[in-house]
């Protein structure tokens, strides 16, 4: 069984293997397919219409399936690799080891936000941004710029304490665990504010262009697992018959063969280190 670890605990060898697998998926074109899929969903998921990947109850099972698929591609390159998670309540600094030159590289330079250190810098020739919203072909970051704040552990704990998975109208206006975790409302704006804190492509619809996307969403996925352990009798909602929304046993696009019910128990696929 694959074990997903905190990125801060990875050995030098584990970091190198992950980076090499990411670079190989990029070289082969597989990586950019994931960026394209994410952007297509983020642009079409709407509060008043059909919504699957975001701003809806299926935000969590959709991203769980998306990460499993991506992790399987990494493992085709190197079977030892699993996705690590970034606990941004603990590793809160732009100088944390996550952003080291041996791992993800650091923030962008002030002139144009271009990342110039680490394996994903444009100058390496190995990380061109091909699926993009603007004309810049390089990875950008603006870590902690413009007053952006990462959520605190207290803010996360307050969201984990919410007992109801999701509520009508099942979108960005909902109360409940899912939308407070996604961050369209509530203290800390949890998941959304991490995208904003990183900046660059991470704050756009093509956010998977930055490899930190996977580590951010892996931690969101872990928080869902933690929440289920804390509230074992709280079900995924809604159960059935909801217009424009993925109910418990509805299939999710783009796979069309997987339901939220299939995604509830992550231990069928992987475990977390704690």
């Amino acid at each position, binding site marked *: 069984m694959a074990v997903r670890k905190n990125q801060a605990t990875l050995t030098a060898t584990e970091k190198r293997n992950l980076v090499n697998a990411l670079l190989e998926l990029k070289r082969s074109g597989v990586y950019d397919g994931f960026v394209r899929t994410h*952007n297509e969903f983020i642009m079409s998921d709407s509060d*008043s219409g059909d919504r699957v990947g975001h701003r809806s109850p299926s935000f969590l099972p959709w991203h769980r399936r998306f990460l499993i698929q991506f992790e399987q591609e990494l493992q085709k390159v190197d079977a030892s690799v699993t996705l690590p998670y970034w606990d941004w309540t603990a590793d809160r600094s732009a100088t944390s080891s996550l952003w080291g030159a041996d791992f993800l590289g650091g923030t962008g330079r002030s002139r144009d936000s271009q990342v110039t250190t680490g394996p994903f810098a444009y100058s390496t020739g190995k990380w061109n941004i091909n*699926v993009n919203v603007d004309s810049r072909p390089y990875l950008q970051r603006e870590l902690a710029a413009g007053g952006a704040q990462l959520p605190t552990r207290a803010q996360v704990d307050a969201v984990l304490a919410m007992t109801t998975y999701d509520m009508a109208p099942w979108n960005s206006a909902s109360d409940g665990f899912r939308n407070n975790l996604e961050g369209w409302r509530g203290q800390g704006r949890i998941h959304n504010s991490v995208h904003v804190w990183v900046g660059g492509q991470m704050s756009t619809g093509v*956010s998977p262009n930055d490899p930190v996307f996977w580590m951010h969403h892996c931690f969101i996925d872990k928080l869902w697992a933690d929440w289920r352990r804390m509230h074992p009798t709280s079900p995924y909602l809604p159960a059935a018959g909801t217009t424009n929304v993925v109910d418990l046993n509805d299939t999710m696009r783009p796979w069309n063969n997987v339901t939220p019910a299939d995604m509830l128990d992550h231990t069928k696929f992987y475990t977390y280190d704690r």
Partner: protein
Amino acid sequence: MSSNVTRRLVLRGTAVAIAGAALAAPSALAAGRAASTAATDHSGHGGHGGPEAFDEVYQGRRIVGRPAEAGSHGAHHGGGFSVLIDGQELHVMQNADGTWISVVNHYEPFATPRAVARAAVDKLRGATLVPIAV
């Protein structure tokens, strides 16, 4: 969300704002907008529930917001409203609470389409938008 009264006053008088934009650099725009607050609403969209049209030069880029034309991308996903930066469509979306996001600031809501357009210009740092792929 900010006061509707304030917002309407600021957005009213698109024609005056265009005149200001055509005349001068962005520094002149504040004056143009101030003058526009006393002008008549020529947009034809005030009071009908949707966001009001705008057309200005912000940080050297022309930003335009207007009701979406039939068949355009905004007609499908932008709540019937299109935003353009230097003639290229910026994908925007309205949230249930009335706030707005765009494809270049997709996790940070803004009060109006104009605020989203300005935030996009800030983020682009002179780069051009590429056509929407969806």
